[in-house]
């Protein structure tokens, strides 16, 4: 599989691109029910949303509101029971498991609350891994990985294993890994929840910069007021339903 992008140079301007590009994800009447023993628990009850290109979108809601489930479905690691999901102009419901894997590798980056770095790989190798999965050449990897390390401020920690890094540093590696293939969308499930407020703010700034620099859409679940302040779009969820959508420059919508 060849890479479409040759490097991680910033896009001309985020706003211009956002106007030119369509939404990165469209969810139409999506429903999801979990079966817990003999009890059916509806988690998402007919949600329709649109995730804009090169925007910082936050899913906001109390525990059990369906934020993570919705993120998982947008990230193509879970499937809805009903409704349609289009990510990067692809109806993901029609893809086979292998096609979905390839699709995720190419289009979606993940940042987890617990970082989820591979403990046996160094910071450099963790960032390199998605590129290896994509079959990127050694030359390309050799160019891109140091740039990403530099972008997240960890050039001097390239050889460290995750166990030798602090929480904030691990999350920076996770961000760099998520950005390695320059995906169209990055899914981040409470990325600052396990960090202290100062580190969390720094990580948030970093991600914000990445959105602007690389024209990548970020979609978060979070309770963190700082995250909400930094967001372009805020989607309020409650009991599996959308309560309100706030879009910067567009006002509120229900």
């Amino acid at each position: 599989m060849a890479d479409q992008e040759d490097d991680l140079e910033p896009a001309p301007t985020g706003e211009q691109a956002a106007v030119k590009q369509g939404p990165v994800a469209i969810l139409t009447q999506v429903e999801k029910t979990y079966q817990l023993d003999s009890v059916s628990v509806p988690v998402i009850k007919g949600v329709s949303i649109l995730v804009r290109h090169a925007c910082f979108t936050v899913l906001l809601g109390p525990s059990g509101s369906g934020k993570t489930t919705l993120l998982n479905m947008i990230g193509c690691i879970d499937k809805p029971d009903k409704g349609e999901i289009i990510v990067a102009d692809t109806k993901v419901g029609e893809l086979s498991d292998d096609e979905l894997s390839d699709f995720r590798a190419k289009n979606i980056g993940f940042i987890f609350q617990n970082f989820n770095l591979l403990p046996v790989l160094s910071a450099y190798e963790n960032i390199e891994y998605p590129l290896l999965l994509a079959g990127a050449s050694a030359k390309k990897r050799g160019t891109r990985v140091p740039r990403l390390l530099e972008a997240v401020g960890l050039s001097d920690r390239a050889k460290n294993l995750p166990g030798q890094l602090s929480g904030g540093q691990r999350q920076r590696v996770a961000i760099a890994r998520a950005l390695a293939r320059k995906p169209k969308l990055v899914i981040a499930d409470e990325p600052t929840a396990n960090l202290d407020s100062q580190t969390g703010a720094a990580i948030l700034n970093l991600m914000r910069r990445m959105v602007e620099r690389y024209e990548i859409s970020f979609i978060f679940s979070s309770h963190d007021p700082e995250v909400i302040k930094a967001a372009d779009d805020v989607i309020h969820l409650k009991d599996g339903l959308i309560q309100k959508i706030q879009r910067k420059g567009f006002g509120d919508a229900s």
Partner: protein
Amino acid sequence: MMTLNLAIRNLLRNRRRSLATLVAMSIGCAAILLFGGFSGNINYELHTRIVQRGGHLQIQHRDFYLYGSGNPTAYGIDNYEKIIKAIQEDDVLNKMVVVATPSLQFGGIAGNYAASVSRTVIGNGYVPEDINRMRAWNDFGLRSKAPLSALEGSSLDAAVVGIGVARVLQLCSELKIENCPKPETETRSDGNALPADIAQLSNLESPSAAATGNTNRVEVLVVNAKGAPNVTSVNVIRAEDQGVKELDEVSLIMHLEKIQQLIYGRTEPKVTAIILQLRHSNQVAEAKERLRPILDKFSTKQPLAIQDFRDLNPFFVQTVQMFDTIFGFVFVLIGAIVLFTVSNTMNTAVVERTVEIGTLRAIGLRRSGIRSLFVIEGTLLGFFGAVLGVVLAFIVSAIVNNMNIPWLPPSNVEVVPLTILVAGETKMIVGTTIGLICIAIASAWWPSHRAAQMKVVEALRHV
């Protein structure tokens, strides 16, 4: 390459568990190889003794194998010397055949009439020099050597008997046989038991014990080729352990020329078998093929057949099969232990790394990639476990072989140093290594399949 790299690092990450699995595997592998080396050596010992005594091939009258025991001399081979000459002159066979020698089997009665004892015997007449050349055959490089026949260089009337024959004929003290208590059953030993007619016949052939004063002399009564009884007196020069009690009780070995004189008199002598010993046992099939047209020339008046040493010694085949079966059983048993050990290790790894599996799947690794990762880990465990096992088996076998522990293999007549043949047994080593690697792969397959089938969200949610 990345998957291999990741697999190696994952194995190194849990060093203690990987090491425990490797130790279990290597001990299992070494146990298989040591048993294989031990049983293989027994097979080689048996194989070598059989070839040393009876050669690889025997040319016999077609019916001799099935009916010859009743009256061996009725199945004699005419022109045996010409047959041997033809074999020796064949361009291909002369390169394969080490010894081509005639033998004559006969049945008769051996009597020590000075002690008033006699017994039926099954005799063989050989060319002693050829017999001793055959006993030098050692294609497998065994450390033990077969004892040479005492007949070589002896007078024509010399004979060698089985220990059981010597015991019954009360030749123990003369032949210095141990474990030979005098039987409680009284036997007459008035020295006049030799019937006059037999004594007369015997004296025609050679001087009797009574005449020479040699107490080792035994009268041998046979039926000659014309059906008449004939007797000769032989000088028993040694009693040899035949390795099997039944054979020990009846064996009498004489010079071929002597027994031919006794059976065929002045008529053309015959033999009951032409023994062919080849350089290597794997030449049997080729030699058989080459022999057929030669034998056809001599089969116009006598149907000849070629028997190989496996046909002639069903005990050997049964022993090899028995050890092969036990080896297979041991392999299956240890293979099962390896299967459960590796499977347990891989199952634990899958449980421990569930979140990692979810992460890898989320960032785009296919199910097959997850499966490959765990299968490669199992394969590496299998490979290194087997290699360590081979090294361990080499070390243990070298130690045991250098200790020179004496033991008596089945059907052997002499105590030999206990030998475990691992070095040089390439087929066994490669077979066991590949077998164990395959078992390790099979044991890793199910956990890897389970890992690959995990739902990404459930794997990521795992605590």
